[in-house]
């Protein structure tokens, strides 16, 4: 896709930078879009032992080039996977703690890592009703998280209009298990356990 230098989209750049955050041997819960693309790229370039989970109910996905699934719930997600199971089962693996990294996008993010994918404006009288959390809230609450999104003023705000998926600070205060990442840092953890990572396109300007 990336044939000539300086002729690439922001999404392609973001995919490549995001892919570099992953390490071989990790188990990654990937959302649709750039996370799915980046996890697949990492798997093909440097991390053949990367295990990708999809909320549709897939463990160990290997997406075929040119056959990207339109969501993480399509049959294309299951091709050459290790296991196909129910959606609740795969989300419960996340709750049990088998996922090293949650990898997702969002409509709006703030300095605390809170993500909004539910409402723009006042939720009682929203300017825009967005599609909602999907598995985003579960991923943010239950795993370390990498967020990949385009760096735009309207997306990177001081405070999100609505906390769909809480950043670890917020989750910790509420008693959600993300408290682990703030309190007890695991030495074996492949990425910095004390700060969730936000990857945006601005890093390469």
């Amino acid at each position, binding site marked *: 896709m990336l044939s000539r230098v300086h002729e690439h989209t922001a999404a392609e750049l973001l995919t490549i930078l995001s892919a570099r955050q992953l390490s071989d041997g990790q188990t990654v819960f990937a959302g649709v879009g750039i996370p799915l693309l980046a996890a697949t790229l990492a798997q093909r370039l440097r991390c053949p032992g990367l295990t990708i989970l999809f909320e549709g109910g897939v463990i160990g996905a290997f997406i075929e080039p040119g056959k990207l699934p339109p*969501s993480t719930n399509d049959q294309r997600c299951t091709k050459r996977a290790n296991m196909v199971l129910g*959606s609740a089962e795969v989300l419960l693996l996340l709750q049990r703690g088998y996922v090293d990294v949650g990898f997702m996008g969002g409509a709006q993010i703030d300095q605390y890592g809170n993500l909004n994918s539910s409402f723009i404006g006042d939720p009682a009288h929203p300017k825009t009703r967005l599609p909602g959390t999907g598995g985003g809230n579960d991923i943010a609450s*239950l795993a370390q998280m990498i967020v990949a999104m385009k760096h735009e003023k309207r997306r990177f705000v001081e405070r999100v209009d609505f906390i*769909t998926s809480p950043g670890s600070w917020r989750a910790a205060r509420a008693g959600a298990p993300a408290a682990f990442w703030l309190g007890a840092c695991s030495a074996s953890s492949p990425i910095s356990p004390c700060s969730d990572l936000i990857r945006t396109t601005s890093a390469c300007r």
Partner: protein
Amino acid sequence: MPETKAAPRVVPTYLELRKELLRRDRSLRAKVVSLEEAASFVRDGDSVGIGGSTMSRTPMGMIWALIRAGRKGLTCSRSIVSSDGDLLLASGACDRIVTSWFSQGILWGVSKVMRHHVETGKAKFDEWSHMAMGMRFRAGAMGVPFLPIRSMLGSDVRKQRPEPVEIDCPFTGEKILLVPALNPDVALIHVQRCDAYGNAQIDGLQFMDIDLAIAANKVILTTERIVSNDQIRRAPDQTKIPFFAVDAVVELPFGCAPHECYGINEPMIRHMEYYVGLVNKEPVTGMQHYLDKFVYGPKSWSDFLALIGMDELLEAARAGQSIYDA
């Protein structure tokens, strides 16, 4: 008892749940009916659980039939809702969607039909986390009033919902969220094959369908193919829903069109793009045009498939079957 205010209507008592089950004829009997007859199993105002997820194994044919039958006031719950939700809201069949995500698909941004109905207050969109939806159906299937989960805590998604209850775990003292069981009046599920009794085999992704079938007080199956009971017995490990949970069986080839059915067809993307282009441009008039032409217009489901077109159908079927290629 500080949290009793919402409790009685959110979750039925165990006695009510068992009484509902006793009312059903659970004998080993043939249950094959027409699509139109199956629609009469759903009453106005029912709580309807929908199988599949996003554009996958959506019981589109059954939803199409409910809209044609003029059902009103349904509350529809599903793990993730796609264009099925648009059709249900715009036709007036449904005024409340309970789900974790609702738009046509990530390819097309935000559904203008969903936005139109939710932002104007014509319909409600109750948002839960994906795992919460799963645990609500799971609790319903287990015959317990709730299950504890560790997500949603500290989020505004939790704050928006009056139903869940936050407690200190009696064993560890940790905060935990109790989500109420969801036992829909009726579940609509599409499968690849089942027998006339309703022993259903599902290939590929199961989503939340097994819990949904067991939780619901009535189950309508649509199936690509009705097979003999002997064929079911040859591979009983493939049977995912037992006959005694099923109330009606409808044979409906390409019953998920224009959505996907694992191993049968991938989504009919050209039709979906035509649909999204039409309704996201004009969420009211575009949608009315679509309903008139593709839902109310056709004489039968085959007639609807013919409108999608043979080229697109065959292309989607070829891609669907390719999942079995090495």
